[in-house]
């Protein structure tokens, strides 16, 4: 049997150092030699104490942080794109179609209702607005966001409500790669369970997931592979 799927995401020798010019050019090494692969339908969890560079790795995969060395290869519409080398237009196209990202905090846009915040990535990907809003509503309902909040801008919501808006926005499009940074950090047990179910569904559809989850129980329920990031931060120091 040789039906093993090729990886969706391959990191090889990825390194990141911040140079703080305002502090006399102090160099802060974050990670070095980051190498791992993620296959379709697999959830990889990055583990290790705070400050070891877990979020920085996710941000480099998303193209939010620049990469100083190495490659981040993403299989995208039949081609392979190296995020570490890709220009802005390629990165934007990649984000629209291939890589989804649930950040730790929602960057709230004033005046835009929650349901439109959630539907926006689908609309950007070409789905008609009414259909996108319908699907956004279904997902918000699964995440127990009361319907009376859907029409309001999330800026004034509680932390847990904002995080569920953020999760819905990240999970709604069908991306080949999904990056999750502490998706359940501010959620209660019922909503954490909903997220665990959503992750399982994504995996069944073949999505490759990279996650950071501090809660051991939740991590053990979603992750297939754990990668301890400590060795990458030690390599950078």
């Amino acid at each position, binding site marked *: 049997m040789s039906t093993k799927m090729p990886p969706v995401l391959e990191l090889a020798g990825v390194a990141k150092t*911040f*140079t*703080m*010019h*305002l502090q006399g050019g102090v160099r802060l090494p974050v990670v070095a030699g980051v190498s791992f692969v993620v296959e379709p339908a697999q959830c990889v969890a990055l583990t290790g104490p705070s400050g070891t560079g877990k979020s920085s790795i996710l*941000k480099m995969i998303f*193209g*939010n*942080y*620049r990469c100083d060395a190495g490659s981040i290869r993403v299989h995208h519409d039949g081609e392979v794109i190296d995020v570490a080398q890709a220009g*802005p*237009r*390629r*990165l*934007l*196209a990649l984000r*629209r179609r291939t890589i989804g990202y649930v950040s730790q905090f929602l960057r709230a*846009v*004033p*005046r*835009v209702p929650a349901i439109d915040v959630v539907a926006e990535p689908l609309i*950007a990907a070409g789905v008609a607005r009414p259909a996108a809003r319908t699907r956004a509503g279904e997902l918000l309902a699964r995440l127990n966001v009361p319907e009376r909040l859907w029409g309001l801008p999330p800026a004034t919501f509680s932390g847990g409500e904002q995080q569920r808006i953020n999760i819905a926005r990240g999970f709604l499009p069908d991306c080949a790669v999904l990056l999750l940074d502490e998706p359940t950090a501010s959620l209660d047990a019922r909503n954490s369970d909903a997220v665990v179910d959503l992750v399982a569904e994504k995996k069944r559809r073949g999505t490759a997931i990279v996650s950071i989850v501090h809660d051991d129980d939740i991590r053990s329920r979603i992750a297939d592979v754990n990668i301890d990031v400590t060795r990458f931060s030690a390599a950078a120091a």
Partner: protein
Amino acid sequence: MNTDDPPLLIAEHLGKSYGRRLGCRDVSFALHAGEVLAVVGESGSGKTTLLQLLSTQLAPTSGRVLYRLRDGVTRDLAALGEAERRFLFRTDWGYVHQDATLGLRMAVSAGANVGERLMAVGARHYGRIRSTALDWLERVEIDPERIDDTPRVYSGGMRQRLQIARNLVTQPRLVFMDEPTGGLDVSVQARLLDLLRGLVAELGLAAVVVTHDLAVARHLSHRIMVMKAGEVIETGLTDQVLDDPREPYTQLLVASILPP
């Protein structure tokens, strides 16, 4: 998105000096349809000079600007005749000034301010012009009852929204904006920014937005160009440049924002 379509606007090694004083030097970039580029930097960094070079209001000392016209042909703007350039400005381009009085005709009604751009592209039917103007006033959240008032009696935020309606009514493909939210109250700025963001996305506009306000750049643009002393010192995806600034000057700009 097809990443291989030809760019709409191309700047090649653009430079401008005023005698011995430098306006800007060796600026090159390509802007595609639907892309919003923010040009950031402090006053005197050459941002406005660049905007004027791109929109042919200033002639460059070196380099050139190319634009893909509606017929699909990319032309050197310096080689266009005056009439062709005026036509571009009236139809395919918009220019939003920081000072709305420069972009509006203050002595005529709001409706006429919007209708005038339509008439410049050949609209003649009064009823249709008026209904289009009304439609645009609503889109920029101006009470239709105010259509016959002149912008003299409008607030700063309303004037700016009227200027935007006047620019967008001809469905341009490219809009230049010079500090579009400058000089407005913070709450008015937020409203204008959201409005602009929505319209730009909905209409698929390409835009070059000059601003010293990084929040405006964050909210509105896909890409950023950081300018200092007339030169581009850093470029990239907007969130990349703002979250992971590389150059000392960009780090200073980002670090200088006071948290609310």
